[in-house]
């Protein structure tokens, strides 16, 4: 059982690494040349640790939730601090940083679209590398405190379990000093597929 769990963790780690590579390429393309992405961290955490960590940040964030539906269902979250969503909007619209001053329809949409593109990049890892079809749902955007956004993200899973594996990665857009967080949460139904992938390792 322990050996199986180890293998599944390894499979998730592999998916995370491949996803992060693919997402990084997509993300640098969204924010255009000059932006360099440095991945700060990618680790496994349990549900309570992750929620506590999110609640320890008292800042407001803008998050995009996306379900990756299919054989190995995952729930995806991308978020940035709300002040950083203004910078993100300028980068996407190729405007001088500082042009967007207020959170509006476009800043919300910028986070929505970055989430959409990153989730699609991840779904491509599954289809290209493991022949598992995953379809992203339209993103849902939430602007609230980090803890609230994170709790919303986990709500479906937390009803069923106390602990769950979460893949978290953080990266910076160095030039603009934006810190982004991206989470990938395997739904219970994905275990069979993760097991299948782990056997191939």
């Amino acid at each position, binding site marked *: 059982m322990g050996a199986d769990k180890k293998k599944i963790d390894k499979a998730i780690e592999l998916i995370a690494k491949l996803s992060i590579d*693919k997402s990084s390429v*997509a993300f640098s*393309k*969204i924010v255009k040349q000059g932006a360099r992405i440095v991945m700060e961290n990618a680790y496994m955490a349990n549900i309570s640790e992750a929620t506590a960590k999110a609640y320890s940040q008292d800042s407001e964030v803008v998050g995009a939730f996306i379900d990756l539906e299919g054989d190995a269902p995952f729930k995806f979250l991308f978020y940035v601090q709300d002040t950083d969503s203004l910078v993100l*909007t300028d980068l*996407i*619209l190729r405007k001088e940083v500082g042009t967007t001053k207020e959170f509006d*329809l*476009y800043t919300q*949409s*910028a986070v*929505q*679209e970055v989430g*959409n*593109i990153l*989730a*699609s*990049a991840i*779904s*491509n890892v599954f*289809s*290209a590398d493991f022949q598992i*079809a995953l*379809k*992203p*749902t*339209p993103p849902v955007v939430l602007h609230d405190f980090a803890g609230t956004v994170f709790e919303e993200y986990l709500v479906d899973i937390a009803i069923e379990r106390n602990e769950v594996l979460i893949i978290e990665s953080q990266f910076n857009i160095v030039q603009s000093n934006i810190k982004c967080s991206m989470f990938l949460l395997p739904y219970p139904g994905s275990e069979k597929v993760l097991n299948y992938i782990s056997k191939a390792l």
Partner: protein
Amino acid sequence: MGKRILVVDDAPIIRLMIKDIIEYHGHEVVGEACNGLEGVQMFKELKPDLVTLDIIMPEKDGIEALADILKLDPDAKVVMVTAIDQRESLMKAIRLGAADYIVKPFENERVISAVEKALGLATEEQ
């Protein structure tokens, strides 16, 4: 002479980007829709020369909207817009009759090239 284009995407920032690119090249964006349902309705009302159609949208997705649009007008020119590498959906769209596709994140040149090629305006190097 500029062509009349309908932009269908659930992300306002993407609609704005596509609109800016299209208008910069002398065409007119005659309508913007935020989902497939609204897109098909606007296609019926506005009869544009071309539609740019996002694939993942609420209410009715781009594939369903494409099928509806082509039912209304089998000669409709539709350019699909998709997030990175949604190959299966893209293949489905091309089989249904989409003229071309743009993968997000996109470059301005790729957008105008796909639009003008679908409209029969593109030069060889595009």
